[in-house]
């Protein structure tokens, strides 16, 4: 098939990746009249391709290219080749995300100032604040149809939520509801309302859940200004003699290498692939990789403090029925160092089907202690714990010294050690999560270790000073003015909230900035 835009068209913006960041940015640029090419490494599946089948969809949409792991995190032991549980497909991880759409709290933009020096943590304040983000949050919430905003009612409570709510009430928690979810509770934006199918992680069959795949990208394409090229693996970003980026070398579906020229390049490949691409794009002019004068590319990798608590009860729960994450307790997301750690965490309902529960309840465990838990599968309730983890310079994405992928490029290694603050927070969260269920009469509770990372953040962080980070407050790299980063890797710190709403808000804001800078001929 012929490309819509010519490979030699050096007036286009090239966006690498089509998830929450890239898919939103590319579509918004197109809506603003900017010619945009999205290069997506994965295939284009549509809703009819989605199946309510955990392992089947895992094999179909996950990013399974070779990666290695190191560090003391348990993922390195349990899933050594799978540090992250993210999607390689048009739509990126907005296909399997759960839909939780929470704004950062005001103080979470300024944690360096608030927390002070935490040994081992490479903290930094964001170069922007909540006030500056509020209009963009509002725009994103409207666009994504987030419940409990814009007059959209909350989703109805499932069995799993009702148990959480009862426990929250028992413990005196004040803020428990069915969440701010980018899942339609009533028909909106040409999409129907949630049918309580479950299987949010396997791709939403009803399109009630927002995804760039079927919400943003088709709107962008309808303008005639957006071309999405699936199965296009970017190999390196090219630059000219002046140090401006000039195009992108990529391999198409057949492995043929092509160069798409570009006026602006935006990298949105998630926090593992984005720094990897910058590092793999090193040249004689940029020997340490593109945009890496600070040396921070790939560093400060964050994955959120995570964990889960599952509990079994005497009577049935059937947590697999209904929206996966429509339930939250936000009381612990406050700043309260008297708990023994800085930062906070959210408690959110979660369920896995039996196939995934077998793999993730306690990876590697076997014997009757384990199997007797699964015997009670339909009597189980579950929650996910997600909180702010400490950025550490040594937690990083680096290029593997010897191992190459199918294109001859160095594969990424993902190194992560838990910070003592992360561990203290996780232990607190396990205790509180178990207490929620114990108060409702749990027979057994299970502190389930972190899954491969779904929230990958921080590896091209935002900073006001060029020496402290990779991009400025617009996601524009400090070193190269027509090179932008447009995904969660720009997060200066992680906050306690699920990151997608902030990624989308930053992408909308960045689209505005890029269009404006282009019209002023600044880029």
């Amino acid at each position, binding site marked *: 098939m012929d490309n819509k835009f010519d490979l030699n068209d050096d007036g286009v913006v090239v966006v690498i990746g089509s998830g929450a960041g890239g898919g939103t940015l590319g579509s918004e640029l197109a809506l603003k009249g900017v010619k945009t090419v999205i290069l997506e490494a994965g295939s284009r599946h549509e809703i009819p391709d989605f199946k*309510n089948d955990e392992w089947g969809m895992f094999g179909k949409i996950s990013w399974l290219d070779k990666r290695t792991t190191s560090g003391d995190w348990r993922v390195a032991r349990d899933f050594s080749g799978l540090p992250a549980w993210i999607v390689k497909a048009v739509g990126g991880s907005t296909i399997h995300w759960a839909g939780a759409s929470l704004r950062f709290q005001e103080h979470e933009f300024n944690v360096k100032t608030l927390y002070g020096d935490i040994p081992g943590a490479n903290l930094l304040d964001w170069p922007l604040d909540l006030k500056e983000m509020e209009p963009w949050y509002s725009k994103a919430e409207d666009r994504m149809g987030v419940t409990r905003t814009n007059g959209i009612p909350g989703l109805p409570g499932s069995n799993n939520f009702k148990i959480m709510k009862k426990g929250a009430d028992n413990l005196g928690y004040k803020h428990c509801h069915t969440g701010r979810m980018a899942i339609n509770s009533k028909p909106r934006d040409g999409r129907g309302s949630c049918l309580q199918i479950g299987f949010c992680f396997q791709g939403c069959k009803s399109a009630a859940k927002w995804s760039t795949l079927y919400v943003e990208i088709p709107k962008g394409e309808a303008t005639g200004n957006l071309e999405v090229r699936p199965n296009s693996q970017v190999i390196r970003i090219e630059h000219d003699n002046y140090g401006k980026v000039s195009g992108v070398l990529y391999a198409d579906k057949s492995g043929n290498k092509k160069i798409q020229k570009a006026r602006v390049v935006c990298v949105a490949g998630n926090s593992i692939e984005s720094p990897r691409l910058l590092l793999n794009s090193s040249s004689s002019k940029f020997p340490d990789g593109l945009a890496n004068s600070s040396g921070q590319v790939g560093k400060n990798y964050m994955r959120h403090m995570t964990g889960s608590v599952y509990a079994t009860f005497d009577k049935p729960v*059937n947590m697999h*029925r209904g929206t996966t994450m429509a339930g939250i307790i936000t009381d612990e997301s406050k700043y309260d160092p008297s708990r023994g750690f800085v930062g906070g965490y959210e408690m959110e309902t979660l369920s896995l089907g039996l*196939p995934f529960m*077998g793999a993730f309840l306690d990876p590697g465990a076997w014997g*009757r202690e384990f199997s007797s838990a699964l015997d009670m*599968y339909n009597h189980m309730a579950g929650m996910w714990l997600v909180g702010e983890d400490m950025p550490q310079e040594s937690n990083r994405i680096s290029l593997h010294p010897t191992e190459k992928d199918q294109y001859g490029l160095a594969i990424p290694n993902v190194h992560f050690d838990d910070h003592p603050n992360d561990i203290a927070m996780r232990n607190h969260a396990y205790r509180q999560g178990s207490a929620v269920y114990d108060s409702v009469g749990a027979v057994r509770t299970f502190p389930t270790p972190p899954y491969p990372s779904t929230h990958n953040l921080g590896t091209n962080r935002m900073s006001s000073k060029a020496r402290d980070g990779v991009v400025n407050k617009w996601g524009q790299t400090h070193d190269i003015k027509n090179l932008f980063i447009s995904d969660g890797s720009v997060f200066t710190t992680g906050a306690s909230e699920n990151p997608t709403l902030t990624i989308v808000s930053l992408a909308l804001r960045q689209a505005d900035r890029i269009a404006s800078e282009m019209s002023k001929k600044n880029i």
Partner: protein
Amino acid sequence: MEKRENQKKVSRRNLIKAGSKTLIVMSVLPTGMIIGKEKAWAVKAKSLKIDTFATLIQVSRDIYPHDKLEDNFYAKVVEGFDSAAGKSKADKDLFENGLVGLEQASMGKYNKKYRDIGWETQRVQLLRDIEKTTFFQGIRGSLITGIYNNQEAWPLFGYEGESAPMGGYLNRGFDDISWL
């Protein structure tokens, strides 16, 4: 034909302590057939030694013991090992050599073959000693999908599988909890 003690009905609570019910009743025939209790199921060893095949069924149940699952769920997973052994000598050696080691340990510790040890706890002790081996982890890893991703087993766990074709759970019990 080899006879084994009959299974007795015991409550699940007692089982957690006793565990003797889980010794699998099966007939291992010289023809390569393994016949389950009351002829409920039968499998044929094609590439693995029949004793290896039969013992792997017991090992599989001991790794993820579910009293609600009939033995054929485990036998089916071992059929996959047998088939892998038919395609790869390395796989065949892994299972056969692994079994030789397990039987040696079994004889050394209890002076019995693995399948003759009546107590699950004792069999599990032998498995604990080898749980880091490729042999054990290969079996365990296959069981994770072989048991928990087996659609025929799902109803026994109360897992209902796909729901979109039935219109989700909006009108089928997503909020039907009544005991809170």
